[in-house]
């Protein structure tokens, strides 16, 4: 895909993140701004890999308490009960409720972890300068970007439940500390996706190509 197509950077041009306008970089050591939409202009996202890595590590750290701590405490007349996400999945699992259980399992446990793993893979391959499966890696990045926000569903459901179910003497629901960490995981992975610059994927390929050409020449 990118092997034979020139990139803007190769031609000393910057493309705007916001409106896609191509522009020449600002003269001198100044930071460039898009003349059309005033978006910050860079050849590549600054310190993309480093930021992504930082966010990923933070997300991975938060992922542990998010799954170990209870996300929701249900107080009923029969006593209170704290459930972690996994306990919720187990609780929902029944002959009729299994689709719901699966949704929670996917949205809350598999997607965040998959996101972290996928992004780690992308960061490592880019860092190594891999040129294989470029197209797949870009597709993977898109998927991660699209699917990532759905993890927030769990947080929304939780906050809704907490605010709606307040039948004080009979039943009340309180958020657990796990919820905070879970939200942090979702936000941090979204930030990681945001800070990762997919153009780096084919930059490496282009670099290798030029190297190859140079060697050939």
């Amino acid at each position, binding site marked *: 895909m990118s092997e034979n197509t020139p990139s803007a950077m190769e*031609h000393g041009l910057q493309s705007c993140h916001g409106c896609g306008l191509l*522009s020449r*970089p600002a003269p001198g050591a100044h930071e*460039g*701004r898009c*003349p059309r939409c005033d978006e910050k202009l860079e050849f590549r996202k600054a310190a993309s890999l480093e930021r992504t890595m930082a966010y990923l590590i933070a997300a991975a750290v*938060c992922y542990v308490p998010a799954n170990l701590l209870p996300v929701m405490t249900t107080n009923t007349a029969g006593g209170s009960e704290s459930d972690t996400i996994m306990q919720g999945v187990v609780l929902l699992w029944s002959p009729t409720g299994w689709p719901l259980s699966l949704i929670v399992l996917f949205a809350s446990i598999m997607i965040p972890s998959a996101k972290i793993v996928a992004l780690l893979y992308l960061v490592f391959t880019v860092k190594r300068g891999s040129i294989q499966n470029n197209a797949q890696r870009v597709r993977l990045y898109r998927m991660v970007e699209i699917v990532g926000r759905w993890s927030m569903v769990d947080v929304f459901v939780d906050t809704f439940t907490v605010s709606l179910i307040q039948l004080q003497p009979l039943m009340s629901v309180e958020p657990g500390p796990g919820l905070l960490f879970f939200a942090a995981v979702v936000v941090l992975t979204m930030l990681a996706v945001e800070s990762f610059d997919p153009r780096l994927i084919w930059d490496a390929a282009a670099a290798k190509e030029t190297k190859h050409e140079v060697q050939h020449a």
Partner: protein
Amino acid sequence: MPDTEKFSNVPEAKAVPKKRTRLSLVWVIPIVAAVAGVWIAVTKILEKGPEITINFSTGDGLDANKTKIIYDGLTIGTLSAIRLAPDHQHVIATAKMMPKTKDFLVKDLKFWVVKPRITGLNITGLGTLISGYYIGVQLGQSKEGERSFTALESPPVGGDVPGRFFQLRTTELGSLGEGTPIFFRQIQAGQVVSYELDKAGKNLNVKIFIQSPYDQFITPDTRFWQASGVDLTLTAAGLHVQTESVMSILAGGIAFETPVTDSPQPPAPADTAFTLFDDRTAAFRPPPRDPHDYLLVFKQSVRGLNVGAPVEIGGIQIGEVTGIQAQFDAKTAEFSVPVTISVDPARYGVKFLNLPKDDEQPGDGHKRVMDILVARGLRAGLKTGNLISGSLFVAVSFHPEAPPVTLDWSQEPVQLPTQSGQLEGVEESVASLLKNLDQTVSNLNLTVSSARGTLTNADRLMTSTDKLMGNANNLIAPDSVLNAELNNMLQQGGDAAQALRVLLDYLERHPEALIRGKTGEAKP
């Protein structure tokens, strides 16, 4: 940059002074996350309380991760796992205690399952119907730490309430049960904790708890009795109803009282055993002092004599009947009824004066007294105590005219001579009754003859009365002179009344007639 000229029409970016980029700043985020994570982990580990195991006889109502251990309304732990013991006879529950409960966990800490319990008097743990069972805790006094406990079957009684435990011995449980109230002067002073059959299976040991300050009223002399239900007594003075409280009528109870003595006794030590009497009367029946058993052989019917019937001398009870058997002597072909009595005058408050001392062996003096009494004609007999029920009692009386008897002290129990006095007396009475009857009959004859004279007189009286009546009849007859005269008189009376009415009428219309007299034109 080779293509700058080519894209010269491309607008140039605005120049903004470059800020110093501190990319490393982004690493603060994972550091913060890690610190938060570590902090949570550390607090979790620090918060992790001790883990204990509790042995239950049944896992009924217990739920892992749900059943709480609650002390004074606060959760101090939660059951984390429940499994069957290796012997399959009971259930071992693992409980995670809250942090800082380490000093709770001592050797005599008590656990029990709080569930709805409905006894006759108490309904407890109703809340658990909704909330599910929980585990109650009673703190221990011990200093020794412990991690494995055995749960009690029922909530402990007493606990933090000051008081003491005592034992009651009884042959029948009656309506007693755990939690049965114990009354002292109609105040609830304690309750039954538990009961168990003794090893021989003959008696029941009832463990009771008397709370302070009532426990100090229990001396070794205190009497306990079953206060279950109502005690009805019908005496010459009327009907007596005795009960402790409405509650005890419904659910049973125990009452205790300490007899008032001249020298107050110190409170009984804890776990003292007492006898539980059937009723108050039995409880306050004087205890045996110096009982002696005797055998009375009656040849007459003992119908109406019961075990427990009193033995009286001069109307004062000195003992009671303890046994009634029957025996048949094949040799003499005689049927007799041996009755054993227990005589204990001291028990019933008979005072002894100048009692001879035992010379050689104990009971010697008593024997001598008895010998003297029998020589003076002491005999036992049966007497009717109650005419309606026909109940008999043993009456000991003196019959100096009776043939002399000596007591055979080698027998056990000693046979006392009997006197079938009652029957002889009856015969005598019947004979005198018959004699009297004879007299009465002859008297009656006399009366009858005089009555005959009276009757002739009465006859005469009747004839004259008859005549009188005839005269009276003549007077009232319709055709008699008197009648006609009377009719006439009435007629004239009526006429007079008519004339008077006319006069009054006239006067009403012409009142002046009173002065002027009747005028001609005023004539109606």
